[in-house]
C-alpha cells in the first residue's frame, strides 16, 4: 500500500504543508502544492527487482504515486515502447536516438492517460463522483474515456475551435462536452471557478497535485527501458510545462531510492512558434514567462498561452544545462512526415514540434551529435491528420489494369514510388 509513503501536500514555494484533499494551491502565497513523500521508507520498501516482477504498466512504480490503495481507474495505462530510432537518427545526423512513444498509450493514445489514471483513482478515494477538466484535446479524450470506464460523470470544457476529431473522441464516451468561445486559458479560468463553486474533481485544477504525479511514470519507464540509467539529453514538448519537470523528478526519485546512478541529463523544451511563452522565456533570459493572449498554431495541444508550470519548466531547463526552441507550423508538419517515413510512427502535431525542435537544436550545436538523446512523443497523429495533409503526396489513381500499374513503374519521377 502506498498510503504509508505519502506525508501530505507541500507548497513548492514556501514549504507550507497541508493534509491530503482536493486542493491545488497554498492559501498563503497561492504557490502550487506537490505531494510530499517519505523517500527513506520508499527506498526501504522498493527496489528494481520488485518493480521488474510486476506487470509492465505505470503502476509498477506504485509506491512513488500518491494513492492510498490500489488504483481503481486506468489499471492498464502505460508500459509504452521506447523505440531505438536509427533511421531518424541518420536523418538528423546523430549517433543514438530513442523515442518514448506514448502515441500508443492506452486507452486514448496520449500520455494524458497516465495523469488521468492517478487523478481519477484519487478522485474516487476522495469520494468525488463528478469529474472534469479544461483541455486542449488529449486530456478531454482521456478524462472522458477513463471516467466512463469508472462510472464517473464527466464535464469536459474545451476551446470551441478544437479539432473535430478530438471533440468526437470525447463525446463518444458519453461525457458532457462544453465548447467555450475563447482560448484555453479562458477555459481554464472558468474551470477554476466551477471547481470552487460546485466542488467537483477537476483533474488539472483541484486534483492537480495528484494528476501531475502520473507524468513521472513516463520518466520511470524511460530509465528502466534504458536498463536502469538515464540518457544525456531529453527533448520534451511543452504546453503547461509540467511533463518536462516530472520526467526530471522521476529520474531524481529513482536515484533517491537507489535504483539508478546520479542522473546527468539535460532537458530541452519544445514549443510551437505560435505559442512559445516558455521557450521565449528561456531564450531571452526572462524571470517570468510573458503570456500569449491568442495562440496561433496547428499544434493545438500545446496552445497554452499562460502555462501554470512555465516558471518551473524554465528552471528545469536552465539548471540542467538544456535549452528551448520553437518551430513554425510548416516545420511541424514536415517533422511529422519525417517521423512517419523514417520510424513508422504517426505522432500528433506536438510530436512534430518535438522532432523539429530537436533538429534545430542539433543544427545549433546545442545537442551534441555523439551523445544519447530521448525524444518524448506524447500523442497520436490520427487525432490531428489535417495538420500533415499538405506535406504528403496525394495517392495516384489508376484503372484496375496491370498495364497502367507497370506504366507507373516506368515513370521514374513518380512521387509515389520513389
Amino acid at each position, binding site marked *: 500500500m502506498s498510503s504509508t509513503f505519502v506525508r501530505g501536500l507541500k507548497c513548492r514555494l514556501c514549504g507550507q504543508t497541508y493534509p491530503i484533499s482536493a486542493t491545488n494551491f497554498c492559501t498563503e502565497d497561492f*504557490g502550487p502544492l506537490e505531494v510530499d513523500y517519505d523517500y527513506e521508507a520508499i527506498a526501504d520498501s522498493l527496489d528494481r527487482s520488485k518493480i521488474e516482477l510486476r506487470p509492465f504498466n505505470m503502476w509498477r512504480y506504485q509506491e512513488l504515486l500518491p494513492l492510498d490503495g490500489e488504483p481503481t481507474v486506468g489499471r492498464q495505462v502505460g508500459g509504452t515502447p521506447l523505440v531505438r530510432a536509427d533511421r531518424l537518427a541518420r536523418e538528423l545526423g546523430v549517433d543514438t536516438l530513442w523515442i518514448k512513444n506514448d502515441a500508443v498509450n492506452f486507452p486514448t493514445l496520449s500520455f494524458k492517460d497516465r495523469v488521468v489514471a492517478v487523478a481519477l483513482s484519487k478522485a474516487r478515494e476522495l469520494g468525488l463522483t463528478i469529474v472534469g477538466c479544461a483541455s486542449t484535446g488529449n486530456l478531454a479524450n482521456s478524462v472522458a474515456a477513463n471516467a466512463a470506464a469508472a462510472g464517473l460523470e464527466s464535464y469536459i470544457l474545451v476551446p470551441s475551435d478544437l479539432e473535430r476529431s478530438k471533440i468526437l473522441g470525447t463525446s463518444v464516451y458519453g461525457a458532457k462536452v462544453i465548447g467555450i468561445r475563447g482560448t484555453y486559458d479562458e477555459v481554464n479560468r472558468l474551470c477554476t471557478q466551477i471547481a470552487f463553486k460546485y466542488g467537483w474533481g477537476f483533474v488539472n485544477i483541484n486534483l492537480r497535485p495528484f494528476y501531475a504525479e502520473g507524468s513521472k511514470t513516463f520518466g520511470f519507464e524511460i530509465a528502466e527501458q534504458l536498463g536502469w540509467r538515464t540518457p544525456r539529453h531529453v527533448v520534451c514538448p511543452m504546453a503547461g510545462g509540467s511533463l518536462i519537470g516530472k520526467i526530471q523528478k522521476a529520474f531524481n526519485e529513482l536515484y533517491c531510492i537507489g535504483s539508478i546512478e546520479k542522473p546527468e541529463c539535460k532537458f530541452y523544451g519544445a514549443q510551437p512558434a505560435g505559442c512559445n511563452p516558455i521557450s521565449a522565456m528561456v531564450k531571452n533570459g526572462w524571470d517570468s514567462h510573458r503570456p500569449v493572449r491568442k495562440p496561433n498554431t496547428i499544434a493545438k495541444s500545446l496552445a497554452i498561452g499562460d502555462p501554470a508550470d512555465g516558471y518551473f519548466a524554465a528552471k528545469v531547463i536552465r539548471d540542467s544545462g538544456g535549452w528551448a526552441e520553437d518551430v513554425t507550423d510548416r516545420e511541424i508538419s514536415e517533422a511529422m512526415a519525417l517521423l512517419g517515413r523514417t520510424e513508422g510512427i504517426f505522432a500528433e502535431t506536438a510530436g512534430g514540434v518535438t522532432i523539429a525542435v530537436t533538429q534545430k537544436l542539433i543544427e545549433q550545436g546545442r545537442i551534441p551529435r555523439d551523445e544519447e538523446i530521448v525524444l518524448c512523443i506524447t500523442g497520436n497523429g490520427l487525432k490531428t491528420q489535417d495538420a500533415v495533409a499538405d506535406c504528403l503526396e496525394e495517392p495516384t489513381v489508376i484503372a484496375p489494369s496491370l498495364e497502367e500499374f507497370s506504366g507507373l513503374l516506368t515513370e521514374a519521377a513518380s512521387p509515389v514510388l520513389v
Partner: protein
Amino acid sequence: MSITIHIPTPMRQHADGQASVQVVGTNVQTALASLGEKYPALTARIFENGQVRRFVNIYLNNEDIRYLDSLASAVKDGDELAIIPAVAGG
C-alpha cells in the same frame, strides 16, 4: 466609483467570508489598495514586494490585466475585478 472585487473561496476567510467586496479606485492598483485597507490580510496574499504574486492572476471584466496595462489598468464605476489562483491546467 464602485468596483466589485470577487474573492476566491480560499481567501474569503480573510474578508469576513464575503464572496465579493465593493471598493473604490481609478485603476487596478488603487482598487486593490482599497481592498487592502478593509482587509489587510488579503494584501499580503495578493502581493509580494509590491508585485502581484507569481501564481495570482487578476482579471478586469474577464480580461487578464497582463494583457491590459497590468496594475495601471484604468477602472470605472461598475467594473468587476476577480482574483483567481493561477496554478491550474496543463
